[in-house]
């Protein structure tokens, strides 16, 4: 089916997130306003105004009432999804790179960038049932990894936190004590910055995309490397299909070089791979800049991609997609 082009952002997209029901799509971009769309027809529902810098990441609570966004303006803000009012703002002293609600939405894990001499941190905050009781105290703060931590997410049962970033190492931390439990192997793991990390629906495995032109699938309990998907360009975004054994990987060359190369040379395609066989299934073209964000609808019947070009492209799969035989 023809993709739906959603032009609501003026700057490159950074992150996409569907709610649990898959009827809403939240998008973050380097302009300052996260936006919510109808995931079916791409209508814009509204925006969340209040940030004063690029918004890097967002997450929505299970009941779709709370949205949390992390921004380069050194704040993480909690919003009422329906009204768009800001409920609370956590202030940091460096840009917030990623946010992720725990199972039960009582905790949130936030990463902050290294900035002005502050090292990068992973912080856990508790979310009060009622916004008026909200405090900004950290339950846990982890410091240690060098360079930016591009993504940290909760592991199974909120027992662990999985982080990945510029030092190309994936780490599993104990979410109670902050202890480092596991580290990915330098030899078999990624060789360059890990740009994205995506959990499977049941949190049993996750996919990481890296500047070394590959995406890798890992077991989230044992940190065993399961699969590697090789691309011919740096990976910026990846997503796991909740329905079929597919993964989608997107990227492109560095944004610096975009204007100097042909659209065909840039390879701004979202590529589909067979999750188990690691074979390429196909590609979806359309963006005229690198793909920065990818997300599958939780029903697995549509996906959306966000590009450096400022567009969100919403693709509903054709019936043929579901009968692909490998």
């Amino acid at each position, binding site marked *: 089916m023809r993709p739906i082009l959603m032009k609501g952002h003026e700057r490159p997209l950074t992150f996409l997130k569907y709610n649990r029901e898959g009827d809403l799509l939240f998008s973050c971009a380097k302009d300052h306003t996260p936006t919510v769309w109808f995931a079916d027809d791409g209508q814009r529902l509204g925006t969340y105004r209040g940030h004063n810098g690029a918004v890097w990441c967002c997450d929505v609570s299970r009941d779709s009432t709370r949205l949390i966004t992390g921004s380069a303006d050194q704040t993480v803000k909690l919003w009422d999804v329906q009204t768009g009012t800001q409920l609370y703002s956590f202030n940091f002293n460096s840009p917030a790179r990623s946010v992720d609600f725990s*199972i039960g939405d009582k905790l949130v894990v936030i990463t902050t960038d290294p900035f002005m001499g502050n090292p990068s941190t992973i912080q856990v905050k508790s979310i009060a049932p009622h916004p008026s009781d909200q405090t900004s105290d950290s339950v846990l703060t982890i410091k240690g990894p060098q360079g930016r931590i591009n993504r940290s997410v909760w592991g199974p*049962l909120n027992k662990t936190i999985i982080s990945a970033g510029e030092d190309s190492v994936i780490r599993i931390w104990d979410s109670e004590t902050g202890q480092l439990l596991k580290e990915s192997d330098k030899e078999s793991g990624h060789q360059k910055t890990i740009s994205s990390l995506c959990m499977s629906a049941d949190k*049993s495995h996750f996919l990481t995309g890296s500047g070394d032109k590959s995406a890798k699938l890992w077991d989230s309990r044992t940190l065993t490397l399961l699969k590697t998907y090789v691309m011919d360009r740096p990976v910026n975004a990846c997503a796991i299909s909740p329905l079929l054994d597919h993964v989608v990987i997107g990227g492109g060359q560095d944004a610096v070089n975009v204007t100097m190369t042909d659209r065909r040379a840039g390879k701004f395609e979202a590529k589909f791979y067979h999750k188990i066989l690691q074979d390429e299934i196909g590609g979806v073209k359309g963006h005229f800049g690198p793909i920065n964000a990818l997300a599958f609808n939780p029903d697995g019947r549509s996906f959306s991609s966000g590009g450096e070009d400022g567009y969100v492209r919403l693709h509903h799969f054709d019936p043929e997609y579901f009968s692909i035989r490998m």
Partner: protein
Amino acid sequence: MTTVLTMAEIESKASSLGIDLSTIDFDSIVLPPGEDFGIKSDDEDILHEEEPPEFEAGYGNVIVVDNLPVVSPEKFAKLEGVVRKIYSQTGVIKEGGLWMPVNPETKMTLGYCFIEFNTAQEAKEAQEKTDGYKLDKSHIFVVNMFDDIEKYMNVPDEWTPAEIKPYEPGENLQHWLTDEKARDQFVIRAGTVTEIFWNDARQVRPDPVYQRQYWTDGFVQWSPLGTYLATVHRQGAAVWGGKSTFNRIHRFPHNQVKHIDFSPGERYLVTYSSQEPSNPRDTHRILLNIFDLRTGKLMRDFKGSVDDFTTGGTGGLSGISWPIFKWGGGKEDKYFARIGKNAIYVYETDTFILVDKKSYKVDNVVDFSWSPTDPIISLFVPELGGGNQPARVSLVQMPGKEELRQKNLFSVSDCKMYWQSNGEYLAVKVDRYTKTKKSTYTGFELFRIKERDIPIEVLELDNKNDKIIAFAWEPKGHRFAVIHGDGPRPDVSFYSMKTGGITNRVSKLTTLKAKQANALYWSPSGRYIILAGLKGFNGQLEFYNVDELETMSTGEHFMCTDIEWDPTGRYVATAVTSVHEMENGFHIWSFNGKLLYRIPKDHFFQFQWRPRPPSLLSPEKEEEISRNLRKYSKKYEVEDQDVSLALSEQDRKKRRAIQEEWETWTTRWKQYYEEERDIRMQLRDGEPSDDEGNQEEYEAKEVEAEEFLDVREEIVNFDQEQ
């Protein structure tokens, strides 16, 4: 670990053990060889720490001048002045670098002196230039490098017969030709790694043979018959070959070697280096070495300034065009030749001297080329005297230097010569000025070398004003292809030399209009050609069958920079090398334009098929095989089928294994998931936590929500009286 004991301690220990130290001969205690029990010898430390003494500089910059006059002290200063004057011309003598020893008794000089230059290079030059310099009749200089004197001193006086090494059979350098699957090899260079692969088209992937990091400092190059792979290094070139691993066969020392070239018959290797002048007024010097490839022996060297090796004419300052030496006389490598001012220098490989001991004088010659099979040179002399003397192309037979054929050409701006690979035809592309002299148009002069009197035909394109973009002969064939046109989409025409009954005439076969092509690549076996659109056309490829005059298929290798047919004409490699930043890597196609596989490689520098020696079959035999092709092909078809069956079987097995492995993971994950269900529920405050199973079960309830937008009290007036 050792503990140091004082002598007193040892003595007390010895006495406690009941040993009289005076009865022991300490020298008789010997440690087992290679074992020191952790006791370091004092001497050893010194050996390890002391580095070999380093000299500030060797004597490379010192020369010894012999045969100077023997003079008395009165004339000493005068002689020194003369010597200093002579040697100041060639280089800078170091301060106090001229020393003329004097006999302490007679106070007479000894007839020799030492001169120290600033650099070894200057010394070498001075030595070369002044060796044999005539000061006067009885004093002819004998100049040697100081270092050489030591070398000569060490030559033993007694002659000892050279040791004859027992014969060791060499490796089979042709082993790759015996591949059972008749595959071809290729070499690629990407990043710092050089790799050699089999092109395994049946398995649709390359099969690695050998790889090595930092194998070469520059490029790699196959020899023309594929026997050797040459690498270049700072110290010289090396050739490698052998059965499975590539062993070094020979080294060819040549400092700072820049280019190499094999003779077509693989008998000789030419290496080249040039030395940029440090001073702009100095000449740009070059050095060429010719080695015997099989023995590694230096056969001859050529050195001089760049000017000696160029025509000085149209070549201009840009200098040399490689290869300097062009090999002729077919596969026997009998002759090699280079161009110079007003002459062509033709050398024989029997003696490595000029044929007839003199160069072949041709005034103003600017270009020449050898026939690929015969000792015939074609040469081009441009117009002279503003058109009074016409330009000419002539064919000259070697070694007799007799002119076989000559053609005068008028108002010519440029000529290019194209030999057909069997030496049967020569096409000369002639660019002529139009009458206004403002533009040029192109025609072809076609020589039939093998026919009596070498008839020449003139061919002009249908549209004379078309620019010629590319020209190529069909290998071993009688056809040629031309890309011509002015617009953005040129035309491609095919011509044949064999039409028109008894007297052969050239005629056009067809013209393909408006093609996105700017380069021609004939299959080495003829018949098929790739019309390629490189550079501006972004890598458009058209696979064309010239026998049937039809396009077999079209393809695209985006940004493609290089195209090379494998030596058998079965496959084609297209590559994007590191001239582009993106897309680096290569694709392999079948001859009819089916993309077989693609390999992306970052920093991709080079792709080269390993050449094959010519077939040993006679033309008749080849004819016979191609007639009965069906019979032979059956065998291979069966083989192909077997391979593909085996492949799919393998594939199925592998897939099953992968699938099973995955199953074990997922079952474990499911198990965990089930086990953790309750905990997850708790985490979600008892909300039925998971979606699976009841995902579709939620009902859509219509909830009526009332919202008070505004509450307002108003007094309503009733008319009660009514």
